[in-house]
């Protein structure tokens, strides 16, 4: 299969690849971000965005604008694009595209379950869910009392069902359990996605395995850092790491025993690709780690566009747009709360 995509890829995937590359050309550039960072009010942001691809989505918003509206409309654009692509896609691209949304689905499930645990209104929670991760009976999640019920009632109908089989316990849901559930689900999801991409073979497998390995490694580091100082045992921690990626298996063993951030750093610096990320940080600091990881991810995602005839571009595009929406949210928040000095803290330039 490998090397022959050029002959057959365009039969089914050519149109959509062209579409997604066209969408990519609409991503905001560094010049755009520079202009956006200079905005004084949200209306300025709207004015600037109206000259970009977001224009049609924002132009009919009445003037006192809120950050949530901006983010909502930008997300709506992404969702519209995604839906259009999904409509046009054939197998196996459609499955691939669906895989991209499972991550959001997991987040939504966790969001609703946590929300009901703290007795929040379901409608309010639903509004907070990412529209890409919606499924029919998502609101029913609020009925469930423990994981077994959760699975049996709702999730058995969703694509997440197979991932859930690993974490069914009869324990009542609490914050810790939910977090473990999220990570177990994510682990299963990433492994499944990875396997699926390997099955596709060719350039898709090559590029996606790189991107997913990065994702898995990043999650491993985050799990480690977040679980330092909690009652999570080493073995349990070890179980949450995905069984692939650059860190697998030796890096995981080291991460599993880490007790503070500097040990994590020590473990990670043995891997050349992650050296550069950690070399930017001073010792004992973990605040900027997220941004450093995001920057690295964006760099890798952009590289996916350098090669043709593979599905990685769809994944990369969706991720880049999400990053862009995160950037816009940060900028809008900074502008709205008059914190312009912090505008550059969290913005990751894409180009």
């Amino acid at each position, binding site marked *: 299969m490998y090397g022959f995509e050029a002959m057959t890829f365009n039969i089914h995937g050519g149109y959509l690849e062209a579409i997604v590359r066209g969408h990519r050309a609409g991503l905001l550039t560094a010049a755009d971000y520079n202009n956006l960072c200079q905005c004084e009010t949200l209306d300025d942001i709207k004015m600037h965005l109206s*000259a970009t691809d977001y224009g049609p989505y924002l*132009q009919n918003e009445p*003037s006192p604008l809120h950050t949530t509206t901006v983010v909502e409309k930008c997300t709506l654009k992404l969702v519209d694009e995604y839906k259009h692509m999904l409509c046009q896609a054939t197998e196996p691209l459609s499955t691939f595209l669906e895989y991209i949304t499972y991550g959001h689905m997991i987040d939504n499930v966790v969001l609703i379950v946590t929300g009901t645990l703290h007795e929040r209104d379901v409608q309010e929670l639903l509004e907070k869910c990412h529209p890409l991760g919606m499924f*029919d009976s998502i609101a029913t999640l609020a009925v469930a009392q423990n994981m077994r019920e959760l699975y049996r009632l709702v999730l058995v109908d969703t694509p997440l069902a197979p991932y859930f089989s690993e974490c069914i316990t009869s324990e009542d849901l609490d914050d810790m359990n939910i977090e473990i559930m999220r990570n177990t689900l994510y682990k299963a999801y990433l492994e499944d996605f990875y396997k699926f991409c390997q099955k596709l073979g060719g350039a898709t497998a090559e590029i996606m395995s790189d991107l997913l390995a990065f994702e898995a490694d990043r999650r491993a580091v985050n799990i480690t850092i977040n679980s330092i100082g909690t009652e999570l045992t080493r073995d349990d921690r070890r179980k949450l790491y995905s069984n692939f990626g650059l860190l697998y298996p030796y890096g995981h063993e080291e991460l599993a025993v880490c007790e503070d951030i500097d040990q994590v750093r020590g473990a990670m610096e043995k891997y050349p690709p992650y050296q550069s990320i950690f070399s930017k940080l001073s010792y004992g600091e973990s605040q900027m780690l997220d941004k450093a990881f995001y920057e690295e991810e964006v760099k890798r995602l952009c590289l996916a566009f350098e090669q043709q005839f593979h599905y990685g571009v769809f994944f990369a595009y969706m991720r880049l747009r999400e990053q862009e929406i995160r950037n816009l949210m940060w900028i809008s928040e900074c502008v709205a709360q008059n914190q312009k000095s912090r505008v550059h803290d969290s913005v990751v330039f894409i180009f």
Partner: protein
Amino acid sequence: MGGGTQCPTMDLLRSEPMQLVQLIIPAESAHRSISYLGDLGLFQFKDLNSEKSPFQRTYATQIKRCGEMARKLRFFKEQMMKAGLSPSARSVISDDFDLDNLEVKLGELEAELIEMNANHEKLQHSYNELIEYKLVVQKAGEFFHSAQNSAAAKQREDEAQQRGEGSIDSPLLLEQEMVTDPSKQVKLGFVSGIIPREKSLAFERILFRATRGNVFLKQSVVEDPVTDPASGEKAEKNVFVVFYSGERVRNKIVKICEAFGANRYPFAEDLGKQFQIISEVSGRLEELKTTIDFGLVHQSNLLRTIAHHFEQWSHLVKKEISIYHTLNMLSIDVTRKCLVAEGWCPVFATNKIQNVLQRATVDSNSQIGTIFHVLQTKESPPTYFHTNKFTSAFQEIVDAYGIAKYQEANPGVFTIITFPFLFAVMFGDWGHGICLLLATSYFIIREKKFSSQKLGDITEMIFGGRYVIMMMSLFSIYTGLLYNEFFSVPFELFGPSAYGCRDPSCGDASTAGLVKVRATYPFGVDPTWHGTRSELPFLNSMKMKMSILIGVAQMNLGIILSYFNAKFYGNELNIRHQFLPQMIFLNSLFGYLSLLIVVKWCTGSQADLYHVMIYMFLSPTDDLGENQLFFGQKFLQILLLLAALVSVPWMLFPKPFLLKKQHDERHRGQSYALLENSLDDSDETELHHGSGSHEEFQFSEVFVHQLIHTIEFVLGAVSNTASYLRLWALSLAHSELSSVFYDKVLLLAWGFNNIIILIIGLIVFICATVGVLLVMETLSAFLHALRLHWVEFQGKFYEGEGYKFQPFSFTSLDTEDE
């Protein structure tokens, strides 16, 4: 100069002389000045703030306000669309609306409309809810009724059975059961409601799972689609009743109902209550209906008044936006007292612009007038041709290739005649020409009507080129008469044929039997040629030669235009080392061929021109023999060949060397200057670089460029001449196709002497003529004519590296962003 307000007489050959002008406008009259200039439409503003982002500019807030108004207008338009109203075109032009007043008014209207919509929505919501309620009560009532009936029947049966078996069983136990039963039944509650049909299956499944099957769900289909109160959209729905036992299950069911968007409605088991509810609901429904209708009437009245003014308002807002965008391009003086504008305008418009600015100053009661100041610049001005509705389409053809450099000779002038003519050479049939003329005159006659309305893509294109098509059809009537073809049938329009039979028995399929009996047919091709065996050789030879003559003439015109360009820009080098050798090269080969053709036509000689041309190169000194057309031909040929050979290196070498020399001289002069006053050498070099005339002279680059140019011309002379043979080829194809349709369809059908076959034949003939000959052939001949103009003609002289004059004007506002 034309009459008073008219522009000066049209000079299409060269762009209107342009000037860079600086306007210093006092801040108080700036808005009005720009507005008046927009009405005039002869001034192109330069963006003096290009480094500033849109929201950093001075008038960003005003633009935002206008954008807000435009949004409100869009909202009105949407509302009008929903209500099925269209903005009236004949909107009353009432007193001038001030922007501020308009903003207030739009705000009020929007608020009113939004409130109305909200009220309407609320009413509609409760209306829809009541309808759903009614449905639930009816359906559930039916269900309960039938259930009661069957339950009663069952009970009767049971009782009958019990009566039969009662004696055998222990009566105590039975009594106990009878006692406990009612208390159990009391606990059995139910929830009734309505749910979208596509969700009902999942709903049932989830209910079953959530309660471990301890519910009983009864659904019944609502036939007509129901409007959902929340979304306001029509949807297919089911009425359901869920029976359950226990409070916990009830909570679960309620939650699930919420999750599925199922609307729950209370339901009374009591029949009397049911009737009461239904009658109550019906009463309220009628009330609501009248309220809603009244609201709708009120709303549509409001919308109608909006529609009345809509066009005017939206035009005003668009105008304001464009004015503020233009104002943003001006740079503001530090004192904020005046604005400085820079831009291009045609020289002839100087007075008009000054008048307009004067008027603006007076109208806005400004103390100081606007200063009009012509700047000297080295920047290349935009190109502006003053076209009218006839010439603009032809100019478009040229502009599609490239906008002329400022004051470069404009091929558009010649295109007006040569383009339709070359088209017609390929499309020579006066029958088809008349069809085309009729079609295009429809567009021309209804011009006023068409230009005011919006047309489809293709219609728009045809309408835009209506005058081009008219010229093309006129010329094809002319060439059709020359070719003597009317739907491929010849007519003896200009007197009888020159040829006649020698004797009555001569066959009509051969010219051999014909002799010339009269003077030559006075205009075009003799009709006798048609259908003879030698028709094709005769016509081919004629059209081929004609193509070459036309081609050589047009290419010469192109080269001559390059002379005019060089002369206009004072470029002696190009005249001597480009124009002259090119002229000599082309004419010594193909000019000579044209001469031979003309001589052959005039003398009626039998000489073989291919042979002459080929042996002119292969063995120029050989005797021409029977191919000799005139005395001294051999000598002339050798001379021409030598001239052509000389002109090739002439084209190639001198120009780059001379350019290098010129550059060196200039450079030397500069270095002397540097030696003399070394103090301000930095200024000097900066100045020199600033002018940007000849930064770096790369000899190799210039030489390679010239080499390419020479090769292109030498090879092009041959290939371009050959390219003109397409005139012959397409003309041949056209006449052959039309004769095939005529002979094989129309005449064949005619031959059957059957009216039905004739009608079918006629229909096929008309379809083929319109589809293939009138549409496809027109398109192909058009494209070939286009190519001949762009490549063969304009390639000889036209650089097309200018940019178009785009004045700030309000006339283009309405057409854009539709």
